[in-house]
């Protein structure tokens, strides 16, 4: 122990480590390899500015961009029983949950909110693929039911952004039973005559596709999103054939009549507003860069004040 080890070496190390590029400042497009500056990428909703590849986006970031002024209110989701099967594989399920919560900063794989898009009130739900593969758990089932109930209560449409590998294996049969449960949620909307729009994002497969993700009034997918029931590898092993290029991709499904539309993420908001306003019998949308509803109220108040001020000024002048 001397001043070299105690003082000099840490200083040298810190100089060198400081030289490294800060993390997350640049992201490489997984498709074309272009290095994209993080702010540019997030401004473009995680769509590569070079090749239009749609990278994953968190529910929160999606809602920030979707809702007017980035303002939305979260809807409470009833808590289900935790770890109902006391499931354990190589890790315990509660440990996997904790790891996923730490990684994403979210409580579970689905976020449900209400707010306005283009001055159109909606309820929205988005699945988080980075949270245990977006898998359909009892919480996800509860979230979809809560979203549907809230939509019915407020007489609003439900827009659901799906992304999942399927039902959550760690909840076993109870994960699977979210197929009928979420189907009941869809039926609530149907009975209330409210639109249910599914935006299928990469990837949406398994039991999720075989329930709420395929029961929409309108099915819109993001470009090149993988959508299907069975995994491509399982299919190849079963039929012992190579699958065609683009199999189970959004454009392929559009060709096979399973989707209504394939729409770029950057154009999704406008399209959703257009469709919803027609289905809800509302007037055409106001085009323009709208401020958040609260800000609008402020703006109106400001304008009124201005008018008043002007009138007072005028009165003062005369």
């Amino acid at each position: 122990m001397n001043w070299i080890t105690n003082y000099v070496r840490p200083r040298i190390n810190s100089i060198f480590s400081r030289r490294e590029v800060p993390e997350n400042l640049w992201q490489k497009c997984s498709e074309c390899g272009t290095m994209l500056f993080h702010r540019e990428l997030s401004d473009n909703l995680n769509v590569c500015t070079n090749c239009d590849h749609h990278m994953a986006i968190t529910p929160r970031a999606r809602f920030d961009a979707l809702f007017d002024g980035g303002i939305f209110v979260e809807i409470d989701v009833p808590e289900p029983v935790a770890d109902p099967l006391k499931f354990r594989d190589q890790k315990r399920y509660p440990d996997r949950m904790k790891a996923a919560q730490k990684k994403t900063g979210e409580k579970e794989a689905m976020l449900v909110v209400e707010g306005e898009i283009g001055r159109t009130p909606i309820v929205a739900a988005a699945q988080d693929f980075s949270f245990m593969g977006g898998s359909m758990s009892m919480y996800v089932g509860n979230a979809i039911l809560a979203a549907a109930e809230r939509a019915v209560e407020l007489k609003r449409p439900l827009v659901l952004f799906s992304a999942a590998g399927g039902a959550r294996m760690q909840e076993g049969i109870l994960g699977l039973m979210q197929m009928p449960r979420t189907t009941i949620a869809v039926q609530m909307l149907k009975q209330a005559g409210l639109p249910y729009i599914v935006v299928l994002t990469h990837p949406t497969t398994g039991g999720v596709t075989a329930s709420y993700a395929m029961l929409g009034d309108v099915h819109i997918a993001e470009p090149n999103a993988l959508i299907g029931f069975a995994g491509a590898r399982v299919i190849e092993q079963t039929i012992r054939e190579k699958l065609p290029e683009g199999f189970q991709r959004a454009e392929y499904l559009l060709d096979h009549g399973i989707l209504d539309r394939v729409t770029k993420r950057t154009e999704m908001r406008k399209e959703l507003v257009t469709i919803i306003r027609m289905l809800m019998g509302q007037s055409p949308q106001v085009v323009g860069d709208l401020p958040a509803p609260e800000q609008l109220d402020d703006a109106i108040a400001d304008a009124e004040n201005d008018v008043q001020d002007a009138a007072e000024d005028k009165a003062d002048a005369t």
Partner: protein
Amino acid sequence: MTQYLNFEKPLAEIEGKAEELRALARANEEMDIEAEAEALDAKAEQLLVDLYKDLTPWRKCQVARHPERPHCKDYIKALFTEYTPLAGDRNFADDHAVMGGLARFNDQPVMVIGHEKGSDTKSRIERNFGMARPEGYRKAIRLLQMADKFGLPVITLVDTPGAYPGKGAEERGQSEAIARSTEACLQIGVPLISVVIGEGGSGGAVAFATANRVAMLEHSVYSVISPEGCASILWKDAEKMREAAEALRLTAQDLQELGVADYVVSEPNGGAHRDAETAIAAVGDAIQNLLDEMKAMDGPALIKDRQQKYLDLGSKGLAA
């Protein structure tokens, strides 16, 4: 000749010995081996009881998949009269993995729908091993809606490894077909009873088993994923299927505790394949009991009852 499962090997040896002895005795009339053979029989009988008393989940999967286990076709033949198959989805094809049609159950007209796996190589191929394609689910939807229209109770018999993972199946909307079939199950205003007679394979089973009452045979299983599939994903090793089967809680007994299965039908000693007649009769009794339970409910009450059953599945776990 019974096909023995791996864990039944000791049983196969004893029964083989008894068989051998009897063959010897037939060749040589001087020999008196009957006492010895009977002792072996008794030993085999006891071993069978012991083996099946406490089957592990993985062993239950094997029994549920046993090739000689009675299948949908056998149940329809034994329990229903005037079975009149109705074919096709009116769109693309008739899926032979799904049987369905009008029939009488204890003289009452009903609609019966089920997965059929086939019983020999030829019929297994024809039935696609019980793996339905979109057409199968769409046929089921058609029959469910027809039953609703004419007020006929529906009985579904579930026995499938899962929906067919094929290229054409995906192209014709396998997911949508399953989702719509589940939806149809939830919408019909007639009693819907489902019996898992063998394997309840994931979404392919849900599409038929979203019923007012779900009965499961003692050694049947119903799971979100096959133990092999689960093992290869979570353990990264398909050979860990025993552990996966354990963790998934896929047995009839676990499902009853979780509230998914309402009723467990006992199987004869050694499993349904050792005495199909008894097993089938027990299922028949269960169906009649469950139908009686719902006698007082009208259409809207039946729909509500079914919805409530599934809405409640989110609040209950296994006791620690």
